[in-house]
């Protein structure tokens, strides 16, 4: 399988933690990348549209809290979770290869 785009990977990773509405996904991506990746609304919803088209993400009812009741919630499907797992394994293999070639030291912490 071809590598996922960064936007797709980060959205899938955010949704792996549970169902989210769009703004929460944006905040989670910002948090999980330590502020490096900020998805704009156009990028985020374009990505969600494509992910729903390939059935990796689906819309859900969401929690019935008053402040978020009009929000649209999204969650990973099984195939979405499989795709994320495959991508993480692919990246892990690459990192292990890079370490074996001593591109980066084994104990490097970002």
């Amino acid at each position: 399988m071809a590598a996922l785009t960064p936007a797709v990977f980060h959205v899938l990773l955010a949704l792996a933690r549970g169902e989210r509405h769009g703004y929460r996904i944006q905040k989670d991506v910002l948090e999980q990348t330590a502020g490096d990746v900020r998805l704009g609304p156009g990028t985020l919803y374009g990505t969600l549209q494509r992910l729903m088209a390939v059935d990796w993400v689906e819309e859900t009812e969401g929690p019935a809290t008053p402040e978020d009741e009009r929000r649209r919630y999204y969650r990973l499907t099984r195939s979405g979770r499989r795709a994320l797992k495959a991508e993480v394994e692919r990246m892990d293999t690459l990192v292990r290869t890079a370490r074996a070639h001593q591109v980066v030291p084994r104990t490097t912490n970002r």
Partner: protein
Amino acid sequence: MEQEAAVPRTLYVVAALYGAAVRLYPPDFRREFASEMSRDFSQATQEAWGDGAWRSLAGLWTHMGTDLACTLIVQWLRSGWPAITLIPVAFATAGVSAAARILALPPVALPAGQPDRDEAALLLLVTIVLLIVMATIILTLWFTRPLRYRTRI
């Protein structure tokens, strides 16, 4: 109430402008996501105002504006509508048409001693505009080619 009063009117105006701008997306995308996008923008704006006032807002609005402009092009290309290429073509057609009408006007009597540079200047201007339009079309098609033919998710 006091906190709401402290928020400048500009924030609401910009949020309303963004809400209007998201209506420029293709109909399917707009129906699906426009209201969520507007809501996200308003919420992000309110939070940025709370975080660092104008400095945070400048960064946020720059990012949101860039995102809007880029994704507008991408969404229209994905929609299968040739609108992006039709817009510069329409401008070029209007430019040529206007230039032709101007050239067809009867000559104006110039004061004695003043050189007749209007026609040459106009032709030069039209050529430049056409070159810019053509360059825009070519560059748009060239740089969006990977987006139109991209197969990966």
